[in-house]
């Protein structure tokens, strides 16, 4: 007797969510597992931080599809493979897709999930509404491919994602060899949404990334030093006016 396809799909997604919950009790709370995961920039310049956060937290044995919406690439730059040792987490090929429209980018992400050949899809899109994320989530559960969305600080509205992180850049750690030099990267990550561990929502993590050992560690508040330096007391800056021309 054959099990009807919609029931077997439900069984599969049930089995997957059970296996997810087992691992989702500590950091990063199921990030990078099956489902849609969002990394949102805290402020304008944090797009690089969320890219770093996503890259260090995913593990992909197979090929990866990386979808870029042109507008984001133009404002925040394009990814540079030689720029991060964290790319070593991606073991196989990485196919990049550049689109000008948001809908095309979302279509490409869905196409990647359904192709059955990539084991992870990373998408840089400026916005995705509930319908879009829900659609991606269903596809992700059905085909077993996780989706990570990197979104700028302008992202708002509700989402059907598994986890949602908001990440901001922090001053780097002290460089032991050069006190005036740049040290290890530090980010502050806030868990804004988590379906598997809702009790942890709202927790703030200070993270330090070691690009030599490729390890990400959660550092204590004390280690960072005084709180004034963090985002809590953000220095408000004013934009320089446009230069007046005659």
């Amino acid at each position, binding site marked *: 007797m054959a099990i009807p396809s919609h029931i077997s799909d439900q069984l599969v997604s049930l089995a997957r969510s059970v296996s997810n919950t087992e691992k989702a009790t500590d950091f990063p709370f199921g990030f990078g597992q099956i489902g849609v995961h969002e990394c949102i920039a805290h402020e304008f310049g944090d797009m690089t931080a969320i890219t770093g956060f996503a*890259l260090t937290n995913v593990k992909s044995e197979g090929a990866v599809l990386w979808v870029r919406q042109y507008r984001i690439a133009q404002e925040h730059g394009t990814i540079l493979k030689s*720029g991060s040792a964290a790319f070593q987490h991606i073991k196989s090929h990485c196919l990049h897709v550049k689109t000008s429209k948001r809908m095309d980018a979302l279509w490409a992400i869905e196409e990647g999930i359904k192709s059955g050949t990539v084991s992870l899809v990373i998408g840089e899109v400026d916005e995705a509404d509930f319908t879009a994320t829900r659609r991606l989530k269903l596809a992700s559960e059905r085909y077993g491919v996780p989706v990570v969305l990197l979104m700028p600080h302008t992202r708002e509205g509700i989402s059907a994602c598994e986890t949602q992180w908001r990440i901001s850049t922090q001053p780097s750690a002290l460089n032991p060899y050069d006190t005036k030099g740049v040290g290890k990267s530090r980010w502050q990550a806030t868990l804004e949404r988590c379906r598997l561990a809702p009790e942890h929502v709202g927790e703030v993590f200070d993270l330090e990334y070691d690009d030599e050992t490729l390890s990400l560690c959660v550092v204590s508040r004390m280690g960072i030093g005084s709180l004034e330096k963090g985002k809590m007391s953000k220095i408000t800056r004013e934009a320089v006016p446009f230069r007046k021309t005659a």
Partner: protein
Amino acid sequence: MRVVVANRIAQTLNIHAGLAFTDARARAPNLVFEEIDRDADRLALQKLANWMVRFSPRVSVISDDAIVMDVTGINHLFDDEASLGKLVQARLSDNGYASYIAIADTLGAAHALARFSTKREHAFISCSGDEKQDLAGLPTRALRLSEPTTQLLRRFGLTRIGQLYELNRKALARRFASREAADAVVLRLDQALGIRHEPIKPTIAEPEWVMRLPCPEPVAAQEGVEYALDQLLSQLCRKLNNHGVGARDFYFYAFCTDGKSSHIRVSSANAVRDTKHIKRLLKEHIDTINPGFGIDMFMLAAARTESLDHDARPLSAEMVGNFDEEAFIRLADRLAVRLGEKAVQMPTFYQSHVPERAESFAKFDTSLMKEESVSSNAGPRPLRLFETPEHVEVMAEVPDGPPARLIWRRVMRKIVRADGPERIAPEWWKLSEKGARARDYYRIEDEEGYRYWIYRNGLYDDNRGGPPQWYVHGMFT
């Protein structure tokens, strides 16, 4: 104002190309004129050439008023040469085009005979080997020579092509003041007689495998187009399969009854012959096929073929592994067909110190899958690189270090930490790098923790233009 073209009726009134319009009007008082639009004519001729692909795959536009078609080996499809000529002429006149047609062994001979043969009402068929005889009576200007050269030949008393046959080549060359003119005469004569080869450059890349589907009744419905595609595709794939090849480019043509044609083209990153996959790619653009007044022939062509061996699929799922290369390439194909070929990319690496050149995105190709990133002893590289370095205004410059403040995207940023520089010299051996200056790259961090990759374009005392400028090139994580 001068007459540019003259049709048959005009020619009977002795109006010919080059005649002043006043003279022409004197001969035919009710003559009206229209300015010639060469671009539109050229475009129309090109479209007509595309449509003529239905007869032969090798069609080319050789001048403003001539299409050449290679009919080698296709005569048997149309009974014989005479009926092929008749068919082409009939189809052209159906669409309102008058045509002169000649079939000959060489391009030069066909060109001359189509224009200057005395019996031009029907297609002129020159039997193989008869060129010399057929051409002998034609005027020398039939040889596609420039106007001064023809005039010179006429002055020598050489008005017919036949007169050139007996002449000593050296003696002929000696009569011309310029060597080029003499060479041109000899070259064109040799080409017409088939002594020298003259290749045809087809407007559409010559497909290696073609399947045609003529329709007894013109097809006007979209379902008909899809049915035709299915039919042709299964035939073509069977044929490719039998020969053990796969193709990378597929063209699907639809020829309309009214002389228009439309086609779609899809490419694959590697050779394929999988019906399902090709159909999926072609279907993406099938709406662009416009049936118009009805399509009377479909054609599916495969180009860029490569040998493709049968691949034994592993029986056990465990042997498949977690990466299916075939499926990966198909994904790339599907994305490319919807979003454009340039949208699907893979990083490509190049031995260069200039960052934007060392790593860049290239159109996806299977060869890129083997590429490994070039490991170098270069300094730190940012995670995100701006497509073009962004100029920034800096404050508190010191000659041997990074600035203390900079304005990037209209916001003042105070720099608290920095390391560097990493000096990257320009690639002076490249022509495009002329005037390029050495760059000093710094990794800096502002008081909020944003980490930039900035560089100073030029040194202070390098005498290569004004004071050096600063640019932000990327951002570290």
